[in-house]
């Protein structure tokens, strides 16, 4: 591309102070995790690669409309995929956007969806160490997430306990498309370990489990696949509520990440309404579902809703609860939200500060 890269002057209207809850770090090459991976699994990865429940061993089921699902301007000059260069991440995102804390959400290899459970668990251990060595130690603003291979609960619990005391880790990362809905009891030891280690459970869009993206089959287009991630998140929330996870683990805190926001009030109301009719089936659910959501669940803001009317957006925030919203950019992905421009409404300075910074600061305990 013959284009001069000029530094853009950021508008001085707001001095930004941001906690970005969703940054995707990438590997320049997969050899980056070799130092942290046992030889057996280095060989396995080289020979067999990823072994997932879908048609492509390495690629996603529906090719994205942007390569690597990334911003076109996020490719490092020195090569490597978007998100692999700390220098560029600093120059393009952390510095100009006033990011004081950035949460790393590594998605490569999909360890939780690996059919070979031992391989998945080995990947999580390696990628967890990689996050600390390659990123957090290089930039004190960054924080790691504990990856777990959730279908192997013993291994997951061991990894959570191993990382729980390490302040470099702020949360446990799961992808919604688990083999079974996340609230089912097979996953409860993970929640127990989360509470024991005082770490929230973060559910970020992704994963692959062999189930079609809709209850009526697979969509043809990425346009559909992109839409349905919000519906998968709804099913995760319903599962956590109706399985009684929040009754059993009253200290559990959950972050729904990149699932969209528009559906939250309607799903809460839908769960309340039909729980009222059907509560005899789920006597362990003691309170209206919306109360559990309001008490236990936080939501990251990206991709920001754009209802076309500022009033509708503010009404949506009112109904979700302003204190539940955690700002995220999704850097370096294509549907990135810029902290300056992505709210299509006039927020007060206090509201803006609360979403961009204050809520996450309190939620992750950075104020302590």
């Amino acid at each position, binding site marked *: 591309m013959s284009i001069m890269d000029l530094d853009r002057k950021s508008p001085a209207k707001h001095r930004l102070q941001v906690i970005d809850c969703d940054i995707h770090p990438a590997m320049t090459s997969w050899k980056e995790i070799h130092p942290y991976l046992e030889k057996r699994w280095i060989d396995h990865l080289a020979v067999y690669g990823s072994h997932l429940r879908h048609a492509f061993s390495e690629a996603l089921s529906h090719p994205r409309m942007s390569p690597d699902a990334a911003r076109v301007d996020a490719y490092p000059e020195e090569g490597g995929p978007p998100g692999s260069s700390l220098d560029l991440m600093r120059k393009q995102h952390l510095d100009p956007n006033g990011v004081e804390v950035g949460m790393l959400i590594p998605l490569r290899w999909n360890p939780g969806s690996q059919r070979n459970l031992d391989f998945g668990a080995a990947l999580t251990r390696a990628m967890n160490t990689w996050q600390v060595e390659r990123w957090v130690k290089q930039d004190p603003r960054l924080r790691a997430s504990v990856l777990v291979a959730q279908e192997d609960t013993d291994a997951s619990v061991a990894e959570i306990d191993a990382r729980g005391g390490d302040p470099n880790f702020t949360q446990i990362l799961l992808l919604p498309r688990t083999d079974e809905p996340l609230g089912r009891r097979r996953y409860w030891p993970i929640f127990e370990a989360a509470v024991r280690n005082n770490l929230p459970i973060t559910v970020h869009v992704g994963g692959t489990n062999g189930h079609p993206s809709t209850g009526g089959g697979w969509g043809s287009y990425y346009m559909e696949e992109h*839409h349905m991630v919000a519906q998968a998140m709804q099913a995760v929330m319903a599962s956590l509520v109706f399985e009684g996870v929040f009754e059993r683990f009253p200290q559990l805190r959950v972050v729904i990440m990149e699932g969209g926001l*528009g559906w939250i009030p309607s799903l809460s109301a839908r769960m309340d309404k039909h729980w009222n009719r059907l509560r005899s089936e*789920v006597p362990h659910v003691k309170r209206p579902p919306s109360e559990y959501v309001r008490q236990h669940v936080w939501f990251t803001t990206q991709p920001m809703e754009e209802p076309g009317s500022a009033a509708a957006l503010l009404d949506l925030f009112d109904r979700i609860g302003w204190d539940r919203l955690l700002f995220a950019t999704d850097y370096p992905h294509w549907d990135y939200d810029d902290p300056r421009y992505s709210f299509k409404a006039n927020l007060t300075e206090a509201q803006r500060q609360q979403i961009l910074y204050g809520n996450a600061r309190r939620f992750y305990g950075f104020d302590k």
Partner: protein
Amino acid sequence: MQDPQAAGPSIGLQNAIDCDLHPAVPSMAVLLPYLDEYWREMVSVRALDRLNLSLTSYPQNAPLSCRPDWMPADGTKAGASLAMMQRHVIDRYKLRFGILNCLYGAQVFHSEDMAAAFCRATNDWIRDEWLGRDARLRASIVIPAHNTELAVQEIERRANDFRFVQVLMLVSGEVTLGRRQLWPIYRLAEQLKLPIGIHAGSAYRYAPTAVGWPSYYVEDYIAQSAAFENQLQSMISEGVFAKFPDLKVVAIESGLTWLSGFIWRADKTWKGVRAEVPWVTRAPSEILRDHVRLTAQPIDAADEREAILRLVDHLKSDRLFLFSTDYPHWQFDEDNALPAGLPDALARNILFDNALATYPRLSKADQPMEVAR
């Protein structure tokens, strides 16, 4: 007895068009006269008539499947009695029309031929035992949606009987509803001015959610609204409405309030990825406004009146919602089938005008019996 017109909108419910009534097939015995000799013998040899073909989506005795005060005292299936339906809803609200959506196992048999035979029998039975006995009733055509050819034949069979006003499909079947293999169904429906009624419910070919099989029925039911979102996104993305510009789709028993989140997300996605589907030349919300109508029970909100007004604002239309009781499903209590306090013009649209505009065959009342083609 309380005055049924005292609840609900100030203009009352009289002459309303109820777009979602569920007649129940009491037992397979009633269908036998409409099956051919082969299938009658199979019913006997395989004892098919001893199978309970209630759908997993609507367990026969689940509180949602039947409002407690509408439950027959004699243990028969809710919705099986025309007399009770008349007493509970049709006469009580002095309905002008009521549209029957029969949810029965016929449409979900894995055998396409068996499904076609039992769908045909179900439609014949509806014609004789319901449409033939109450002139206010209309019906949806039940089809074997997983075999397009057989589905088309069944629709053609009903083409000249104007009391069949709609084609009925479950929201979750074998393929996403926009897929081109289904288009002959849509082409014929458009020609015959039959909207496609998409009703909550699954053939359970797959887990009802992308995250697998939930433990509880209540989760399955909650997931229905997500299924509607996904299927509308499929129909829009595949270009069903570009191909069939006069086609209408009615989302039945979808819950309604998911609509706001749906159009926001769908519109935003479209702006970024529309080059993948260049036939989608307008924002999904605009396509929805032109082609999709929705029945107004249940309304997933604590304050249903506020919810409808909010939707009218977000969707920029008061033409989208159709009155329904969802009888005998338990969606409302007493006579609160439509929330009180709606502006009269909006209530009038929901109760009467929107349905007349959606179902062109409705107003061709009192047509003669089915004509062989």
